[in-house]
């Protein structure tokens, strides 16, 4: 056995991986131990050690808009729920709007009309190269806050737009279609959206719409040309070709791409704080300022957004399975 050259242990392929893992593991553990140790020591010194008891104390600040009943005497957990519901409202409306707009623009990129095609391109290029925060501030301060006040409001059938909000016709008491009406110089309507909410969803929809449009365009471009030609030779016109032949096949490519756009929309909705909409992040920030509970607030925020991401991913995976080709 002595004539076989022994591999030294530091080059032995059975040992080296364990050494590397051990070194990395120790390094990670040391860093985490240091960070957590400091955190515990400093928080103890500041009297802020992890506790959830403050969640039951009265929040003593009010929220501008809420879908569930809320006033300042209610506890902190309630205000956080209000924020979460507000966030979810913006996310859901944003998702639907961005999908509709993005699909329309993505399809316009294949229109026979040169002007429409180029406009779709310009829209995508302009929107994608400007920061979302800047766009949100623009929509809020330049567009929505510059609207005329109630008496001079912009009016269309079923829609009234003024400085105090967006008023929409909707079903009111007993499924009766009811439009906005002016009572004593104040608009009343079954559905009122605040300017903050309107600015937020306008910004989110136009921004995410551009990214969705790129995903849709990519999906349509991935459908072989022969499919268009076959549909054409069968006598289908443009919209029938798109609807019955191209889009069903494109969806297989589009849906996974949409998933990541939806998640980034959900995360971007936290920018609502910039336009004064009381979303989860915005109320969390106020909560932090009042209680000083930085760690707990951060953990709640992190958990909430991870949960939202997870829900979107699970739903989109379900959709993805629906649109895949079922082979016989």
């Amino acid at each position, binding site marked *: 056995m002595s004539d076989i050259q022994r591999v030294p242990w530091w080059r032995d392929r059975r040992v080296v991986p364990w050494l590397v893992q051990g070194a990395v593991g120790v390094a990670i553990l040391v860093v985490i131990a240091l960070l957590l140790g400091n955190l515990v020591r400093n928080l103890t010194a500041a009297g802020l050690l992890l506790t959830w008891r403050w969640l039951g104390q009265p929040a003593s600040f009010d929220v501008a808009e809420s879908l569930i009943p809320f006033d300042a005497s209610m506890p902190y957990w309630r205000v956080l729920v209000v924020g979460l519901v507000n966030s979810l409202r913006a996310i859901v409306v944003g998702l639907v709007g961005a999908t509709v707009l993005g699909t329309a623009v993505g399809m316009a990129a294949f229109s*026979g009309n040169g002007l429409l095609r180029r406009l779709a391109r310009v829209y995508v290029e302009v929107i*994608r190269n400007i*920061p979302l*925060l*800047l766009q949100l501030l623009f929509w809020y301060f330049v567009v929505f806050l510059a609207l005329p006040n109630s008496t001079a409001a912009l009016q269309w059938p079923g829609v009234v737009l003024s400085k105090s909000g967006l008023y929409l016709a909707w079903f009111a008491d007993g499924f009766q279609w009811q439009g906005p009406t002016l009572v004593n110089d104040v608009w009343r309507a079954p559905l009122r959206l605040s300017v903050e909410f309107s600015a937020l969803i306008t910004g989110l929809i136009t921004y995410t719409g551009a990214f969705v449009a790129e995903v849709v365009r990519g999906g*349509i471009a991935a459908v072989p040309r022969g499919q268009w030609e076959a549909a054409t030779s069968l006598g289908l*016109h443009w919209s029938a070709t798109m609807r019955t032949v191209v889009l069903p096949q494109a969806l297989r490519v589009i849906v996974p791409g949409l998933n990541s756009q939806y998640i980034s929309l959900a995360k971007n909705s936290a920018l609502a704080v910039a336009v004064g909409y009381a979303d989860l992040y915005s109320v969390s920030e106020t909560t932090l300022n009042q209680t000083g509970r930085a760690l707990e607030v951060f953990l709640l925020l992190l958990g909430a957004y*991870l949960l939202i991401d997870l829900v979107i991913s699970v739903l989109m995976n379900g959709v993805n399975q629906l649109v895949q080709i079922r082979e016989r």
Partner: protein
Amino acid sequence: MTTSSSPPLLPPRPAPPSARRSWRGALRQELFATPLDGVISVLLLAALLAAGVGFWHWAFRQAQWAVIQANTTLFAVGRYPLLQQWRLWLLVTLAGATIGASWGLLRSHPRADRSGTLWPINDLVAIAVLAFVAAWLPVALKLPVPLQLRWWAITALLLVLRGVSGQWGQLVPRRLLRFLPLLWPALYLFGMVLIAGGLGVPRVPPSEWGGLLLTLLMASFAILLSFPIGIVVALGRRSTLPLLRWSSVLYIEFIRGAPLITLLFLGQNILGYMLPGGWAPDRVWRAAWVLTFFCGAYLAEAVRAGLAAVPVGQLEAARSLGLSVPQALRHVVLPQALRIALPATVGQFISLLQDTTLLSLIGLLDLLGTARTVMANPEFLGKNAEVYLTLAVLFWCCCAALGLGSRALERRLDPSHSPT
């Protein structure tokens, strides 16, 4: 209902080179191919015309651009001390000289610059645009005459150096040319010293940096440092060692699951508790590190996709030639993976540049933060549209330029174009 009018059925396909049509035919084909198209085109044209006229009227009649003109210094460098601003001028001059010299040298060595033959006229276009912008912008911004002259001088220096090194650059031996890329990191480090102080130059604390200066610094810092992080984490995620893989996955998913603003929140409010006393960096640097680790996680995903696209055979072939795993990664796998990941990487850098605007939400005076302080000034109250529009144009130009550069680099790195 209108099925009888058959709209064009196929997605547009570039016309074959032989089929040259008159511009009238082209116009007709593009805009008025069918009655429906005609109606759409007319409506769109009318809307565009109305929007254009409205914007023209606003921009040249109603808008008061004084808010920009009176605050150019603030937008550019924030509250950087006036007496120390010569350092920034020196930096801009050096950057201009380096750009001019690198540009010219690349063009004078066509073999070093594989893209040179691809776009010969782009140089002229670039020079024309640069000269126009540099001549017009200082005047439009109503800068004081000495500052206008400085900008013109810097632009002239850039163009002259480009011309000189383009003309006589071939006299520079190729041995020396290999060191050209080193000029940039050197300039960056020197620039950091100039901006922050040290080495005998008076210090300027980060709290006094602001405006475009802070935005560019934060973005470049995060981009440069996140790149190695991204590569290491991507390799870790594809590693066969479970501990490496799981810690990489944990890091990536933690960062990608949370909105950037909550991570900045972590950096501002909790990081200070996690570091030993006195170790916690300044607020600006805390945000810079958060941006770096944030961008690193996304880059890791981009690089991972690139790694996944390189066939396993490449690594196996390199290993069977006797290369060690690090050597095989460094010389065979990573060059291919990074080239594939280039578009996604630059896309990430573009979004990072845009994400620096979030610094204004945590109270830092980046470009947007400075703009908001300007608009809060009673003298300029209500000038939101002018300021936001200017910022939008600025960001658009930066991001579009990065995108253009990415596409040029992609072409240059494309092996099918390489001469060898």
